[in-house]
Every structure is written in C-alpha cells, then in structure tokens.
C-alpha cells in the first residue's frame, strides 16, 4: 500500500504542504486547518511534517458512533463520509495521533484522505521531504526528533525555570 513517507532531514520548513493541504481539504489557504503539520525543532534549525499514518487500528473509524469513517478500497486511506458525520468530535479525542480534526464551518470531522490517491502535500513539497510510495507505516519523525533534541533538552535543563 502506498503511504506518505516523510523524510524529516529534507524538510526546509517552507510550509507549502500545509498550504496545499488546507486548500484541498477545506478550500482555503489556512495552515491552521491543514491536516499535515510541520513541526518546528528550532534549536536544531530543523522542521518535519507530520500527518495521519492511516494506522491499522483506525481509532477514528472504530470510535465513530455512526460509522461515518471508512477505508477507501483503492488507496487504503481512512476517510470521513461527510454526509454521515454528525460532527460529534468523538474521533478527534479518540485518535491518539492527533490527526483528525473538527471543522466548525462544515460541522464535520476531517482528516488526511490521501487526496484520493494523489496527495497534494507530496505534490507541493519542493524537496521531496514528503513522498507517496509503497511502504510500511512507521513513526517517521519520532526517532529523528529524539536524536536531534538531546542538545536542546540539555540547554533547557540548564536554564532557570
């Protein structure tokens, strides 16, 4: 199955993924409603995008009281069926990855649906930090960030709190 593969070391923090994503998902250029988020690791002058893993447990799908979330047969993405969603937000507190959100304007949940098999974030990324290719799912950013942040935490520990 194709996945969004994240290469944190290539990310320049240009935020094009967030703009592209918010436009596709909500019709507005509004990074705060993008379903891909660029994390800033500023002490190392690094950034990394983070989005839905399309995880196998599918916490959002299994928590939904009206079965408004399903799996796209072709691309395997977990997708919200807007006509069925009642806007109860249970998925937004059940998903432990923090990758499904509530849109107050439409009163619906929304999440990464892999743009129907042609993800806008991967298109928009100028440095191929986001690629859409056959792969297993894994925590792309965690191990990288853990390593990078050691010096940051050492600095923080030295500061008076």
């Amino acid at each position, binding site marked *: 199955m194709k996945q969004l593969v994240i290469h944190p070391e290539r990310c320049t923090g240009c935020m094009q993924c967030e703009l592209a994503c918010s436009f596709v998902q909500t019709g507005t250029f509004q990074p705060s409603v993008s379903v891909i988020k660029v994390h800033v690791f500023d002490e190392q002058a690094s950034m990394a995008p983070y989005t839905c893993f399309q995880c196998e447990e599918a916490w959002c799908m299994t928590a939904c009281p009206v079965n*408004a979330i399903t799996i796209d047969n072709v691309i395997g993405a977990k997708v919200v069926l807007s006509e069925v969603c009642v806007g109860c937000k249970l998925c937004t507190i059940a998903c432990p990855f923090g990758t499904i959100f509530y849109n107050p304007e439409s*009163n619906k949940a929304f999440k990464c649906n892999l*743009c129907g098999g042609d993800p806008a974030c991967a298109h928009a990324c100028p440095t191929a930090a986001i690629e859409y290719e056959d792969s297993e799912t894994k925590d792309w950013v965690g191990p990288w960030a853990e390593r990078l942040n050691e010096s940051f935490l050492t600095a923080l520990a030295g500061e008076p709190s």
Partner: protein
Amino acid sequence: MKTTHLIIGAGPAGMAAIDTIREFGDTSPITLVSSETPYSRMVLPYFMDGTIPEQNVFTATDDYLRERNVEPILGRTVTSLDPGGKAVCDDGTEIEFDDALIATGSSASRPPIPGIDGESVFNLWTLDDARAVLAQKGGEIAVIGAGFIAFTCLDALIRLGARVTLVEVEDRILPRMIDEHGASLVRSFLESKGVSFRVGAQVSSIEDAGGRKEINFADGDVLEADVVITATGISPNLGLVDGSGIETDFGILVDDHMRTNAGNVFAAGDIAQGPVIGSDRKEVHAIQPTALEHGRIAGANMAGGDAAYWGSLLMNVVDVQKLQIASFGDWLGEGAEVRTVENDSRPVYRKLIFQGEVLTGAVFLGRPDDVALLNDMGMTKGLIQTGLHLGEWRKYLDRYPLDIRRPYVASKAAEKLLEMQLLNKPSIPRGYRQPDPDPKYWEYHDVFVSTITEGE
C-alpha cells in the same frame, strides 16, 4: 428456543460485539434481545437539534441483522439469566445459549424528590425521551443536573427556542467532567449567552401550578418552568443478574477479556466494570468509546479469539454555544502536579495533569474556531494513553504547555501507538451505516491537482 451467542442489549456495545463475532468469521446463530431497537444514544442530541433525521440514530435494520444470521427479539427485556445457559424474557420466552453477552447499559436515575415523576418532567436518556422533549414547544425549560448529559443536549434545547435554566445540587457545574476553574469559565460564557444557573440548589419538590411547573428549593426559592428535564445521573441495568451468582459492584465485574466470573457470560459497555488505563481499580466509565472497545473485545472472545483489553481511558467532548469542552483521564488531578494556562480575553483554558514525568489527564476549553488551541487534543490523549515517561520534556511542557506536539513527536509516542491493535489485527469498517454516504469526498482535490499539473 436455542442459540449459540445470546446478545442482551442493542446499544453500541452489543452491536459492536455482533459485528466483531462476524468479523472473526464465526457464522453460528446469534440471538439479539433488546428492550429498545438498535440505536446510538449519543447521537440523540444531533437528532434533537435537527442535524440528522430521526432514522439516522438507528444502528441496524431488521434486514441488516437477518442478513448476518442474527435473530432480533426487540421490545423484549431479559428478566433473569442462568449462567448454566438459559435466559428468560419478560413475556416468558426462554432462550438457551452457549455463551451470552450482557450489554444492557444504564438507565436514567432520578433522586427521590416529591413530584419528580409528574407530568412534563422528562429524562434525556432514550429515543423515547428525545421524542417526548421534542414534542414540547420551547418556553422555559429547567434542567435538573448540570452534568455532561445535560450539556450534550443544551444546544438542542436552545435551538428549540427554549430559555434554559440549569439546576445543580453541587456548588458548581460539570462536576464529573472538568475542574472547578474550567467550570466557572464555562458558566460565565453560557451566562453571557442567556443560559441561567442555580448551583448549590437542593430541589425539595416539583409541583403543578396552572399548567406550568414549580420547582421548590430547600432554601425556599421557587423556579417556574414549562418543562422540567432531569439529567441527574444513571444507574446500570443490573436487574437480570440478580441471584445469578454473577459478581457485581457498581456494574458487572469483568476481566480483561470482558468475562464475568461465569466463564461463558461476558459483559460490555455501561453495564461493565472493567480495566482502566493507569489504574488497578475497575471502573464503569459509561462512555461510547469504552462501550465500543468492550463490545469488540467481547465479540472477538465469543468468536473463539483471544483478545485482551488494555483498559479504558475516560474522555469526553461536548460543544455548547460554540464552546468546546473536553477532558481526559485524571482531569481532576487531585494530589497531582498541574499546569494551567488561559486567555483572559476569551474562554480558552488548558490544564495538564502530571504524575512525575507522565501526563495523566487534561482539560481543554476553547472555541471550535480556536483550531490551533484544540488540534492537539488527540496527541494529548496519545500521551495519556501510552503513559510515556516524558523525561526532560516534562519540564518543557511546564514552560510551553501549548506545545504538546514537540514532546509527543520526540518521545516517539507514535512508534508505540502504531503497535497497538485492540484485536491483534487491522480494523476493518464494520457496522451498519445510514444510506447515502457522500461519494465525492475529494471533490476539491480535482480542482487543486489540475491547477498544479497545469503549472508543471
């Protein structure tokens, strides 16, 4: 009659169990007995406020059940259960079973106040309750009990055109959902929207007065209303296990396989008192996500699987007049280390609760359009659920409590969570869905991609 699996109760827990038994390839006969038709209680507010038509609260049709070899016996109540393999219904029907699931949920409970069972006093717990309340015509509504359930229906009542007064016996609202300070922010916000409150108010009686209702308080005060709604708590529907030898405490005690002390009898959902994340005590959480997880575990094990539950996490979210309130885990945080932040120009509040280096609970308050302040709720849940030791990141959160994301990513919460599968296999879509799903969920995208392609 005889069956292999007897499911008692067609709420989310019972229905999740049925779907999971079939998901695990077990095709043996299932009999479903339920006092009510299959529907989801938590969807009732969305029916009441007009978001969805009434038919959309149902979670199965007769055809759906029969196609899955499930014999529905609806409108019947199981009155006694012999773990030896026999259940008796209120009409005398006897059902023999190999194994049974008790998923009877809970009922609204009312304090013993004179007049509380009078006319124009309604509960808000069942579809019939919702229908009865909808048949009222606005006016003044007094809701007794200012807890989570009252809050789930508040917007619907206001949209009915009602002026609402929330009456609470404790000296604060939402006493079992958020901390006192958060509750006071919610209260002032709602007061600014025209909702009235009486807290610390002991109701002594409810009387009829010229076609209206009079609520009398112990301190001599009187509140008039056209309709009274009680949302004063729930009690588990335990009647059927009386004298059966099945162990109960507040609910029916279950192990991590949702088994009761009678090996072939399982319990799930609001009725079950089961394992909890981060605690040795068994609890009844009475929330939808727990009911669904319980139901899935029970179904898998009834189908011959071996699914062990990692425990429930308390979590709730509710929206009132465009204020979103959410809480997780040990939100009360008694005796714990606590970090709070708030915005003094609008109702935005966050509380993080720690035991040492572990995040154990949280409270979120904000307007739904305060997206950046609410969109890390899921990550917060992930950290609480995994109980990860945050190490130095604990200190970071003291300084930057709005930046959950960095500690989350750096503590590799995702790596741990990606390994978690409730039933030891990938989930599949299951359960009944209302017809007419939207087939064009990526409509916008076509526009966008063609724009990009043109530019390339």
